[in-house]
């Protein structure tokens, strides 16, 4: 019932420019290139594949975005890190057995809407708040 991200999604890279990364010795410790950094991924759920399109009018499918990747110190600008995540990463480095790493998680969510028929052929438009991941971060 699900398919791989669409072609254009392959082009999507980290939305936070590497130009703003902190320079210096940290780069030697955690080079971002080649590393699986925290970023937004897409898992497209097709309503057509599920056989729902005879009563779901729109959309044709649902882009179930999710966040995936590592939050490794230093959490520079390319990871959209919160101050809390930076502190947690530092404490994790000091006490790795007791304090977990900061999580790669949604930092901004938006709404999505679904238009469908009910059993009486009335048409219903339902809005769901905080359903779509807009950005990911640490």
């Amino acid at each position, binding site marked *: *019932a699900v398919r791989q991200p669409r072609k254009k999604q392959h082009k999507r890279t980290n939305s936070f420019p590497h130009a703003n990364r902190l320079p210096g010795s940290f780069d030697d410790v955690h080079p971002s290139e080649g590393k699986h950094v925290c970023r937004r991924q897409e898992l497209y*759920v097709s309503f057509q594949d*599920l*056989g*729902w399109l*005879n*009563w*779901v*009018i*729109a*959309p044709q499918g*649902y882009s179930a975005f999710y966040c*995936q990747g590592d939050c490794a110190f230093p959490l520079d600008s390319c990871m959209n890190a919160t101050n809390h995540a930076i502190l947690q990463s530092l404490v994790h480095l000091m006490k*790795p*057995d*007791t*304090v*977990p*790493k900061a*999580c*790669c998680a949604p930092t901004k969510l*938006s*709404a*999505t*809407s*679904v*238009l*469908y*028929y*009910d*059993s*009486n*052929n*009335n*048409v*219903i*438009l*339902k*809005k*769901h*708040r905080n*359903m*779509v991941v807009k950005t990911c971060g640490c």
Partner: protein
Amino acid sequence: GERQAARRVASCPQQHSPRRLSGREKREMQREILALLGLPGRSAPAGARHSPPPSAAPLFMLDLYRAMASQDEDDGTSWAPQRRRALDGADTVMSFVNVVELDRDIFYQKPYWKEFRFDLTQIPTGESVTAAEFRIYKMQSVTRHINQTLHVSIYEIVQDHPNRESELLLLDLQDFLAGTEGWLAFDVAAASNHWLLNRKYNLALRLYVETDAGQSIDPGLAGLLGRHGPRSKQPFVVTFFRASQSPARLPR
């Protein structure tokens, strides 16, 4: 202490290698998606497969859907103010097709009227009405001068009486030129609120047309289309609901 530490370290979701879901797991996942999107877990409605439903309401709702989707994208800054007001704060918008239509036309005594009934048994509970419109299409009146003003009034039928006139509540009154053509929208929020609070209400609206001189006009002759008009121009009610401000989702 070690167990507690292990639990905390494992608090981030682990990266699993993808695996194929079993049929049962797939069905459970689909049910979860349906539940999350507030969709009833069923196949197509009986009527939708065989006879196409009236298309005026779906077309209007599709327009609203696009407006709502663009609001999600651009925070609604590029909308017309009227559309933004209607959708602001609405979590659910429902359109109701006219299921019964009664006419008191020129074959009856005056006053003439048109009555519309709606099936609102599926209106959501725990939500409040923010706005409601009765939408009806008006063609050019063929029997009137196009510059003549017509007064169109919409009433909620509060109670039906078998041997005397029904109890009516005025909802909206608007003036149009006889030559006007297009969709007319009347505010019926008060009726929708009554219907939401008390399902035993009649669920019917009555429409009257009068001239400046108070002369009753047959709504059909004034150009107002009912159930027998083209499918894309059939009357319907659209209601905007706002969900109760519950801060947390109910656990499933």
